[in-house]
């Protein structure tokens, strides 16, 4: 009994120290070094952000990040995290840049800065094959349900503009597509390229209405007050475009979509 009490009181001596050390190490655990840039993205958005069969990050944004590293002479570390965790991570300094097919919009611009846009796309619809829905106007009716992916611009748009329809908020793109495939949701609001792909994968059950009802463009996210880095990123994007880098990435990862969009007459630029 006495032994236990002595042990406990001894432990009491170093326990606060241990706790303080623990708290301190968490508080100072910033990933960024001087010569590395930590780029945050959610590796769940092929072909822009994904992993190869060995689990290594790959895709348009990953290549773009490494090109940026080459341009700036810095080492690039890719940090995989949930899309809605990217901005908080950037704000708290856990990552230095966001390259995650993120749309530059006014709400986000209030908490972070954006580079010049590097890709333009728009929100459109994936609907059931036999659905009578012709466009976004048919959707905002009582009894209709619309699937969105949490934290995307489609989610924000639906929250603001859909007053009568029910909005189903899903964590995963695949689940949102499944809702449409099974007829549980009338439509899935998402960007043009993914909608095209999801339609290609589910041609027997879905139909894509690719005409964008809301235009948007993607940009690199940068912490506020980091104007120097922003200038460098913009310089890189301009240089990369001049060298035909985006063209090359598009041919490498998005050949089929590029041709399809050209055929359909929708603008596509990467």
């Amino acid at each position, binding site marked *: 009994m006495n032994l236990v009490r002595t042990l406990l009181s001894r432990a009491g001596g170093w326990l606060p120290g241990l706790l303080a050390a623990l708290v301190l190490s968490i508080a100072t655990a910033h990933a960024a070094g001087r010569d590395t840039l930590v780029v945050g993205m959610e590796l769940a958005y092929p072909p822009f952000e994904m992993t190869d069969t060995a689990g290594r990050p790959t895709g348009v944004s990953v290549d773009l990040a490494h090109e940026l590293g080459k341009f700036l002479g810095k080492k690039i570390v890719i940090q995989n995290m949930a899309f*809605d965790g990217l901005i908080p991570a950037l704000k708290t300094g856990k990552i230095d840049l966001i390259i995650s097919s993120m749309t530059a919009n006014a709400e986000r611009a209030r908490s972070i800065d954006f580079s010049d846009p590097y890709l333009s796309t728009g929100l459109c619809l994936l609907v059931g094959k036999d659905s009578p829905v012709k466009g976004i106007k048919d959707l905002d009716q009582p009894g209709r349900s619309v699937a969105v992916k949490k934290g995307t611009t489609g989610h924000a748009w639906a929250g603001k503009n859909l007053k009568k329809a029910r909005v189903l908020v899903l964590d995963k793109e695949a689940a949102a597509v499944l809702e449409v495939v099974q007829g549980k949701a009338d439509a899935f609001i998402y960007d043009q390229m993914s909608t095209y792909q999801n339609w290609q994968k589910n041609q027997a059950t879905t139909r894509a209405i690719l005409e964008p009802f809301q235009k948007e463009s993607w940009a690199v996210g940068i912490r506020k007050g980091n104007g120097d880095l922003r200038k460098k990123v913009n310089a890189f994007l301009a240089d990369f475009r001049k060298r035909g880098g985006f063209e090359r990435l598009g041919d490498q990862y998005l050949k089929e979509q590029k041709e399809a969009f050209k055929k359909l007459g929708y603008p596509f630029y990467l």
Partner: protein
Amino acid sequence: MNLLFAPHDSREGGAIPLPARIVGGLCAFLLVALVFAYAFHSLQYHWGWESVYAYRQKFINGWLMTLAISAAALLMSLVIGLCTALAQRSHFLPLRYLSKLYIEGIRGTPLLVQILVFFYVVADAFGVGDRYAVGVITLSLFAGAYISEIIRAGIESVGESQLESGRAIGLTRPQIYRHVVFPQAFRQTLPPLAGQFASLIKDSSLLSIIAVSEFTLNAQEVNAFTYSTLESYLPLAAGYLVLTLPISLLSRRLEKKFRYET
């Protein structure tokens, strides 16, 4: 009077004098508060409560939904758990093995997968489209498997000799369960049951993956809209605590009440 030490055996629980309870409780609270105060103090974070406050109705709606889902699942899982616990002791072998299969299958697989499979595969095949109903049933089946094992352990904690004594004085099987087994098993199962119910409430957050608009999903949405992570999630933690604390308090009270009866 010693303010910091009490005898080990808490059966004399009521005997701890009030000042000692206050001092002890305050010490524990201060220690925890100190650690968190330091952690939050060293955090470089720009708080923005106003933007989150604008979404307070979303928090309230989500909290009520979680309350409703949890209450329904709590009752249903208790029924399922009780039935399968008894079925495990059934003389009819297919029933016994069915409940064993259910328990091992449910306890050995992730709730996330169960929710997805039940909603998108099983419920779809049977034409059940209501995600809230499917959510409650899945959650009840999940918690029911654990509750079943808790109840079984409670029943089996009553020694074989007591059952034999019951038979010896001429009690029937239902009578033995009613008068000998259940009163004792009840007290044994209370603490783990309270823990399981608290888990159930927190596990209901996983229903967000099938777009059930409960507390966690609503907080995540607010976070997605306002980019204020901590301001969205700290109220979330408090909201769950409000739901789980009464359960453990009630369980403590019941434990005390049934202490002398058995």
